[in-house]
């Protein structure tokens, strides 16, 4: 039997040893990468024209800018069209089960703070079957980035309404229109005290990349809602915002430190309402000092929440960008600190632990 150094908890673990061996074999971490380095040999199998392709391309070209080696990234997904994502990225990945990706990613991120952990999920996966895991991941603030592809429909099961579908949605399971009121994912996340919440459009490569960049840099749980077109079961769901004719009218771009003015010629703006919330006003009807200057770093989530409530189910007045980005200690850091603190009191000695407090000796 090999001697196990039972009294030495800080001896290198097999994890450290494996990583050290890998460094010996491959030299220092490869962090200067190109988009193609993140591609895999797997054939991408989404429907032609799906918004997921656009997001995949944006993510593949964005990832190299993070300067993180591929082997230090893990993509965890649940079930649904979006959840095929990990197969197409040359990182570590797990395509798990419906709704549970945030829970699985939590265990991974909490036990391996050295990794960059990403969750890819959809509106059904994250908000219906996995709603519980999502809100708890957000409140815990485990270091991971959650990309929530919202196409407002169940695609993989062929077209039932989802928890983000607008009321009255006619689908295979709701021939007379859906009855339930939808979630606004951004409101939900802010309600769960998420420390980072953003929203982007699949087709807006620049805007999406900027939100992703900020999300990836955030220490703690970051949620990015990505409006994604399902051209088979819910085509044109976001056309109001995508159409160059109507988009600028209804989109409120969020830029930290900038006044919330939008629309053609900056005709519209956001001001405070009499109840402490926010409302839309015509820019020429209000004094410039009344226009709200966007501050994503406000500790109190009420402002970000009020922003998220400006939009209606039909997408008019939809803020896009980073709603909220605040600093709080992240879960895995605090967990590591507790472990460190416990070890300062004395490294665990297995023999002592097994003996416990009260023992007695039986002689031969």
């Amino acid at each position, binding site marked *: *039997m*090999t001697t*196990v150094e*039972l009294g030495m908890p800080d*001896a290198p*673990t*097999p*994890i450290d*040893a*494996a990583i050290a*061996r890998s*460094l010996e*074999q*491959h030299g220092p*971490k490869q962090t200067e990468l190109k988009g193609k380095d993140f591609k*895999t040999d797997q054939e991408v199998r989404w429907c032609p024209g799906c918004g997921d392709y656009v997001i995949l391309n944006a993510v593949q070209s964005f990832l190299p800018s993070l300067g993180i080696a591929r*082997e*230090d990234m*893990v993509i965890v997904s649940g079930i649904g069209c979006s959840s095929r994502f*990990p*197969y197409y990225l040359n*990182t*570590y*990945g*797990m*395509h*798990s*089960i419906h709704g*549970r990706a945030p*829970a*699985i990613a*939590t*265990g*991974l*991120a*909490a*036990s*391996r703070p050295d*990794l960059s952990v990403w969750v890819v999920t959809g509106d059904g996966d994250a908000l219906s079957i996995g709603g*519980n*895991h999502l809100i*708890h991941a957000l409140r815990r603030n485990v270091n991971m980035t959650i990309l929530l592809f919202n196409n407002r429909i169940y695609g993989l099961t062929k077209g039932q309404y989802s928890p983000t579908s607008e009321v009255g949605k006619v689908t295979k399971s709701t021939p007379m229109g859906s009855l339930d009121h939808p979630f606004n994912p951004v409101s939900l996340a802010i309600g769960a005290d998420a420390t980072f919440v953003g929203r982007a459009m699949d087709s807006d490569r620049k805007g999406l990349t900027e939100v992703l960049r900020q999300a990836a840099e955030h220490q703690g749980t970051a949620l990015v809602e990505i409006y994604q077109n399902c051209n088979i079961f819910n085509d044109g769901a976001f056309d109001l915002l995508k159409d160059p004719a109507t988009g600028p009218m209804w989109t409120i771009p969020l830029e930290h430190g900038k006044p919330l003015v939008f629309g053609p010629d900056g005709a519209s703006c956001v001001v405070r309402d009499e109840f402490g919330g926010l409302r839309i006003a015509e820019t020429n009807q209000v004094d410039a000092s009344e226009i709200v200057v966007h501050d994503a770093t406000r500790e109190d989530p009420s402002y970000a929440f009020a922003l998220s409530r400006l939009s209606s189910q039909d997408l008019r007045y939809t803020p896009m960008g980073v709603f909220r980005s605040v600093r709080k200690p992240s879960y895995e850091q605090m967990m590591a600190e*507790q*472990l460190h603190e*416990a070890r300062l*009191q*004395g490294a*665990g000695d*297995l023999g002592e*632990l*097994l*003996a416990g*407090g*009260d*023992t*007695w*000796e*039986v*002689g*031969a």
Partner: protein
Amino acid sequence: MTGTNPTVAPVTGAPATTVPGSAPGGLVKSVVELDRVVIRLAGDSGDGMQLTGNRFTSETASFGNDLKTLPNFPAEIRAPTGTLPGVSSFQLQFADHDVMTPGDAPDVLVAMNPAALKANLGELPGGGLLIVDSDEFTPRNLAKVGYATNPLEDGSLEGWQTVSVPLTSMTTDALKDSGLGKKEAERSKNMFTLGLLSWMYHRPTEGTIRFLERQFRRKPEIAAANIAAFRAGYNYGDTTEAFTVSYEIKPAPMKPGRYRNISGNQALALGLVAAGRLSGLPVFLGAYPITPASDILHELSRHKSFGVRTFQAEDEIAGIGAALGASFGGALGITTTSGPGVALKGETIGLAVMTELPLVIVDVQRGGPSTGLPTKTEQSDLLQAMFGRNGEAPVPVIAPRSPGDCFAAAVEAARIALAYRTPVMLLSDGYLANGAEPWAIPDTDSLPDLRPAVGFATEPNGSTADGTPEFLPYLRDPETLARAWAIPGTAGMQHRIGGLEKADKTGNISYDPANHDFMTRTRQAKIDGIAASIPPTDVEDPDGDSRVAVIGWGSTYGPIGAACRRIRSSGRKVAQIHLRHINPFPADLGEVLARYDRVICPEMNLGQLALLLRAKYLVDVQSHTQVRGMPFRSAELAAVIQDAIDSTSASLNGAPQ
């Protein structure tokens, strides 16, 4: 666990010798030597009976007796005071020889109130010693449980040696100068009672005094009151004329070594910490609180200095999900729960089967179905553990046989999980979890080295068509069929796994019919192949030629063992087969079963192991079952076994049955 010595015949609790002694004040007291005693302490949930029982257990363990305990408490945290549903009890058997059970029935019953008397008296055999707190037998308390007259006065307790003691008022008298109010002083009556029992059974008292000082170090006046009450109880026994006899139970011969008292949940938690140290892997527990498993979470959360991470999840599913995520990252992932939690974890266990990652799932079984009997024991999750998932999803199942054995079973579960890259079900139960026994503390050098089982892959193990080296996550070890395990952070080994069917070797998604058939059979073959790494069937047959065998698994080991001893002491022959590994079974089990004319299988369910044995070996197993939320009584089992032996020999001899 304590070793069993089949050559030591059990002896009854009859007095062996009487030694006159003297007490202060000239009162002559005698000391009676006993070989074993079963004591049951019963009171209201708020009376501290579990604490009293645990303290008496510790005193008894450190004195050197062998023992087994049976805590029995309601699921309600505080049922209405003085009512039958609020009765909490603690039974222990201790002896000068090795004991296998907490005893079928008490020799001594301590009843702290009328409810405790009513709920337990039926199980105290005639002539047994009954100690009651007479202060609590008030008209109001009697009425609460439907006593029309006071049993202490109406002669209904004449069949027992009843000692009526005003425990409450003697406690408050003893504490009248303590500065505590009456209500607060009354709370120490359990320590007064413990003191009295400690005198009666010659228990060492220093441990309890140290314990009270430690427990209440921030409330020295409470510590002082409890110690005063404890001493007053002891001195009362020494001086009162109510008790003229005290009892001595000599230490039991045990294998040399250092011992401690340990409960099943404690031993299981320590086993998991040890498995982490033995494998070198950080332990990650994802768990949601559930009775009777929560104590494992509590215990593990105290061992952060061993690098143990505990995560209290939002639900059972997240508990196992996080554990599996940690396993993917190279930790020893563990989730602990009870039956209802296993039901929720089923889909993730299936994912662990498909992704072939190590994971230990601890199910501390309780009465079911549904919420069932949360605080009572049962073995009814065996088939759920075996089959409670969609698809062909084989999972190894192992079970400890005694509280102390939970330690070794936990290490074994981790061994299998790591070596075979598989989720493993570890089936404890409420009786093992809360029960306690003396445990020979293992020498850490004697524990198995689990490092070779880990073997993280760091180099490509295959190559693509054009000769480029590549990592094949589903390339298997030819011997164990375990797949290659590479962890994030290892360069060049990036791969994706998931719940969709895997192509052989590459692990890519595959819907190919032949591949699915192959992979399904391979996953099954991997689990079946674990049999090659486990010891042969454990058969205890001192005579060697028994024609009847009793087979069990898990916590029935003690009651079955005690029943077999009774059978043997009556001159009959019986073999005891006890299974640690239920999936896969030991390789020789079929052969072993075929040796016997009759096989009896007692279980605390409706015959789940019997079903598996019949299905696999075509053996006509006779199932004997009980689901009363309590362990088997060994006398009852002995009767069943004796019937089987006598009818077997009668039918084989051609005599009329």
